[in-house]
């Protein structure tokens, strides 16, 4: 008689238990327990995250998970943000939408990042998913306001429309007016990326006034200041608000109207926008400052004294994005006022000027690391750094989880000692044991990679530029960093040996990007042959790699694991192992 084992609970019970398990990792573990758990789990998984849209095919996802309600897809590699991935490389969402339109009629949420989204895709979404609720297009491109009009017109239950940092073509359609008068469900709307002609203000006002659940509203630049007050008075329940353009001179009537409107917003916790803000208007937000947890001033070209005044009103701040106009003195003020600070990002106001235009150095970051005990996440652009400062920061803040430092001039050395930054970054990885993301800069030898390989055991993403001396550097990282998922490298003398020696490691990672390095075409071919579950893409706009000797280095290399095999949408400048595909000449 077969034993009745404890995990032979009825399927419905197991399904109910699984419904409390939300994280992908946990779900994946659950599905690996046994065949029956795999089966039950796959029928009740509702949310899918695909970190690389080419790692798996839509059909495969649908076959395994027949009842998905929410999907998140990422397309282009991160370095596409900096124009390193040529246009036309890929990341098209249409094949996914087409498949899901048939298989998931009850799909509610689509979140995309760095993908090419056409109006056709948006129209298909609008007509295929009757209960569609959430559309997030982060850093996407390829669509116009026509596509948005289709979404607005058809998605009766839309709650969230977030176009953060996407490129949208203006087709001169007043798409906001396509939300019917009966539509009232908006909770979160982010249209900050749209240009001036793309938003009709009166349509916006009407929309805001009939959506009582609106919690997050991020307007675009073109909405004038005097209209901001109107919007705020229509939506005093807002938690997150992205302001629009501030006008050139202070008008006291506009100011007091604005200040009054802000003071009504008791729930407001997060502010962003502030394009072209004139400092005289900033006091209009003082009434909400004490409750603010997130402030994005990274588009505001205001100077240090005004920034200091502002942050000194915000003791609850957890997240600050700001330009280097804040200067060391402003960061010192931040350090003494904002003890809850968890995330700091300081962007360069003039990244291409050789001379610094603001007095921002390593001192500011040291001050924040000392004064803000909860600081976990740092993105810092500066022109000067020292190993001593990095060591201090590491010792002060062993709880750092994300550390991205960009010393603007490549190969800059320690300004005090003239040395590379090996020791400084070594201290970061040694002390910050929970570090999951790291970006390096400045002059660096293979030593820093030895430290990273030795200490950075939880590191998941590493970005490297203009660093290292030899293959040993890359080898240290690939052989030492156990948790590594994404590695992106540009302009480093890393080549064939390290790559081929650590070929197996690449299958444990999501992807590897290498551009302007020393990897030869021959090594790429060899890697392709050895590793059938890796897609090795040689991206080279100079023409077919076969037309050059095999030891010639490739321009750009993108390697990612995939169970879907080669993709069918490669442009002419991408070469992979299948010769037939590579020789396609016509578009």
């Amino acid at each position: 008689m077969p034993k009745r084992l404890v995990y032979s609970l009825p399927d419905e019970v197991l399904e109910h238990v699984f419904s409390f398990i939300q994280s992908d990792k946990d779900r994946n573990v659950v599905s690996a327990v046994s065949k029956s758990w795999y089966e039950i789990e796959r029928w009740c998984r509702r949310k899918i995250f695909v970190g690389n849209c080419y790692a798996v095919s839509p059909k495969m996802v649908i076959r395994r998970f027949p009842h998905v309600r929410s999907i998140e897809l990422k397309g282009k590699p991160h370095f596409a943000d900096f124009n390193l991935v040529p246009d036309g490389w890929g990341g098209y969402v249409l094949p996914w939408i087409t498949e899901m339109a048939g298989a998931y009629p009850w799909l509610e949420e689509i979140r995309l990042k760095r993908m090419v989204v056409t109006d056709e895709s948006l129209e298909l979404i609008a007509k295929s998913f009757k209960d569609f609720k959430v559309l997030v297009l982060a850093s996407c491109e390829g669509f116009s306001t026509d596509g948005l009009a289709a979404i607005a017109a058809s998605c009766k239950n839309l709650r969230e429309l977030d176009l953060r940092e996407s490129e949208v073509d203006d087709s001169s359609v007043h798409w906001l007016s396509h939300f019917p008068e009966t539509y009232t469900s908006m909770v979160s709307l982010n249209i900050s990326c749209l240009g001036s002609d793309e938003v009709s203000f009166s349509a916006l006002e009407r929309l805001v006034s009939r959506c009582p659940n609106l919690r997050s509203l991020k307007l675009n630049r073109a909405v004038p200041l005097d209209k901001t007050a109107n919007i705020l008075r229509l939506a005093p329940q807002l938690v997150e608000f992205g302001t629009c353009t501030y006008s050139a001179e202070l008008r006291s009537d506009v100011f007091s109207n604005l200040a009054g409107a802000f003071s009504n917003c008791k729930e407001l916790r997060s502010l962003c926008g502030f394009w072209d803000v004139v400092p005289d208007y900033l006091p209009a937000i003082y009434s909400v400052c004490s409750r603010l947890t997130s402030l994005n001033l990274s588009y505001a070209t205001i100077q240090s004294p005004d920034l200091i005044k502002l942050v000194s009103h915000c003791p609850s701040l957890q997240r600050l994005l700001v330009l280097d106009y804040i200067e060391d003195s402003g960061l010192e003020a931040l350090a003494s006022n904002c003890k809850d600070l968890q995330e700091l990002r300081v962007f360069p106001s003039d990244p291409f000027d050789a001379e610094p235009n603001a007095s921002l150095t390593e001192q500011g970051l040291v001050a924040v690391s000392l004064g803000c005990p909860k600081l976990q996440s740092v993105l810092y652009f500066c022109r000067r750094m020292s190993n001593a400062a990095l060591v201090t920061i590491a010792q002060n803040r062993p709880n750092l989880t994300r550390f991205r430092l960009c010393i603007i001039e490549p190969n800059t050395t320690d300004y005090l000692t003239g040395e590379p930054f090996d020791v400084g970054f070594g201290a970061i990885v040694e002390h910050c044991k929970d570090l999951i993301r790291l970006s390096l800069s400045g002059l660096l030898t293979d030593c820093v990679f030895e430290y990273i390989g030795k200490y950075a055991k939880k590191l998941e993403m590493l970005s490297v530029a203009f660093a290292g001396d030899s293959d040993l550097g890359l080898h240290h990282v690939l052989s030492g960093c156990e948790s590594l998922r994404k590695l992106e490298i540009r302009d480093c003398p890393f080549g064939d040996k390290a790559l081929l020696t650590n070929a197996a490691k690449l299958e444990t990672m999501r992807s590897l990007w290498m551009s302007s390095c020393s990897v030869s075409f021959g090594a790429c071919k060899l890697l392709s042959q050895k590793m059938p579950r890796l897609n090795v893409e040689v991206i080279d706009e100079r023409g077919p790699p076969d037309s050059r000797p095999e030891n010639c280095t490739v321009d750009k290399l993108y390697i990612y694991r995939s169970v879907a095999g080669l993709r069918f949408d490669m442009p002419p400048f991408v070469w992979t192992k299948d010769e037939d595909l590579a020789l396609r000449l016509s578009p």
Partner: protein
Amino acid sequence: MENDLNLKATELRLGLPGSDEPERQMTPRPNKRTLSDIVSEGSRSTTEEDHQDTAPPAKVQIVGWPPVRSYRKNCLQGKKDEVEGGTGMYVKVSVDGAPYLRKIDLKVYRSYPQLLLALENMFKLTIGAYSEREGYNGSDYAPTYEDRDGDWMLVGDVPWEMFISSCKRLRIMKGSEARGLGCI
């Protein structure tokens, strides 16, 4: 340390065939070297700078560095009017039947023949010659563009300067479909 200018060790090598392996040195390098100008298309070259130069040469922008997103760059510099001397005049180019778009900088070209040749090379197709009466009849493809009024026009119909200032995007249509355009 300062006098040991082993320039070969500092050379960023991008592996032209037949070149020597640079000797890898573990000695600390001399201070800041000026980086070579790296452009996204065309040939690469590395330059070896003498560290004793007093005035560094004018800075040429490296592609994608510092890593500031173009979205942010655009916002900070303001939406410059592309006609009035912004940093480039990028327009999207689509080709009927192709799954991808390209972007080109119209400022790079001086004349229609240059532009058409570039498009032919980029997409591996033939556009052929333009004639005022016939347009691109006889070619497989015809280049069209959307102007500021939203109308689709045949490339070549208006003088070059006018085209540059009014072109918003390009679309290379299949020859048969383009015949309706550009009729005079």
